[in-house]
């Protein structure tokens, strides 16, 4: 009986410890926040000789920047005036954010 009681006490104690461990593991496995995930992203260390290659990689290619070869007048009003003066229709590119900047 005593043995049984002791066993029960040990069993309860063991269960309590296991539950505590399990709870701690649950807390440890809480999903990482986006900021924590981002913090683990390795960033390249850029050396000075690599700068031109990085510049060319980031900046638009000739094809991507082809729109900038058009001689855009940067306002609607000036475009409309020029349209009348040159007797040509106005091709107007309209965006939220200036089309020649960040849209």
């Amino acid at each position, binding site marked *: 009986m005593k043995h049984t009681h002791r066993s029960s006490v040990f069993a309860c104690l063991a269960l309590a410890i296991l539950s505590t461990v399990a709870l701690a593991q649950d807390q440890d496995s809480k999903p990482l926040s*986006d*900021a924590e*995930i*981002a*913090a683990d*992203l390795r*960033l*390249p*260390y*850029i*050396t*000075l000789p*690599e*700068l*031109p*290659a*990085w*510049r060319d*990689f*980031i*900046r*638009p*290619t000739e094809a*991507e920047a*082809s729109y900038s*070869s*058009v*001689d*855009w*007048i*940067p*306002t*609607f*009003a*000036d*475009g*409309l*005036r*020029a*349209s*009348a003066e*040159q*007797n*040509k*229709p*106005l*091709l*107007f*590119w*309209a*965006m*939220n*954010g*200036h*089309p*020649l*900047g*960040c*849209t």
Partner: protein
Amino acid sequence: MLELTQRFVCAADEVWRLQRGSEPDCLAFQSLSTGGKRITDRGTRQGFWVFAPGAGVLSRVNTRNPERVLEALDAGLAAWDELTDEQRKLPKDLDLSSGHRWEDNFPEGGLALERIGRELGNKGLFGERSRLWNPDYAWFTEDELVAGFPDAMKNEDDLDLSSIARRLARFHLIDNVRGQSLPFADSEIELAELTASVLGGGDSATLLFRGRTRAVADDTWRLDQDSIWKPSKVIAHGMECEFTGLAVYDIHKRKFNTFDLIAVGRRWGHTVNNGRWRDPAPGRVAFHFGLAPDMPRIAPTFLSEYGTDWVVAPEVMPWRDSPAECGLEDE
């Protein structure tokens, strides 16, 4: 298509102001695009339009499909050919003046940078170039330039450019490669360090840049409550960047001969604006800052939020509320 554009006068402009504003050039756009009315709804007017000064819209398309753009241009040219001389002229009473344009704040004698942001894969330079990129501009006045790059700089000086780093972190190291996003408040900048080590002296100095920034926004709007950028919903997001760069500065002319500043960054979260909800996982972004071309002068997206005395804003942001909300449709 580039050849076809030579048959037009080509213009580009920010349309939100034009479709919602009450300045004369805005009213002219609204009248020409609707056949004489004010625009009172919030529907988009983005895209390519063909206008005749005295006849209004000849064609319009809002698409990324080049075939459809070509069709719209052809339709516009065909319609133009049918017009009378009078329809091709500006109506005599058409007022095209504008009271305020942000580019009028251009800092003569200062530093104007062109910023390109591009999505960056985990292989960096050795990976595929992402097609997600977006330009912007960053402006600094002559006083701000001289404060950062003093006339008395000499070989082996380390210049503290933390105020420049702070402006870049708040307004230009922004995850907008998918489209416009939101600036950071000053209180959201946890780190803004940028140092230029001076190499050489004499008339021009070579400057080696190194630095770091960290901007963290939670779900509270911490910029001006009246800001035109205040979103309908504030979502946590952040950006952490590391700078590397090289420039050659003419001390006597107070002008950069060359300027290359690279920032690679970790981004997380998104905003209601930047389309990142389609791809919400944290990732990398890369930025290049170089000297802006002299023309055209395009204002920085968040110039209105710079919070400096040299940026002059309109007394009333005319496009904040639609005409319908202002009751202007009864005018």
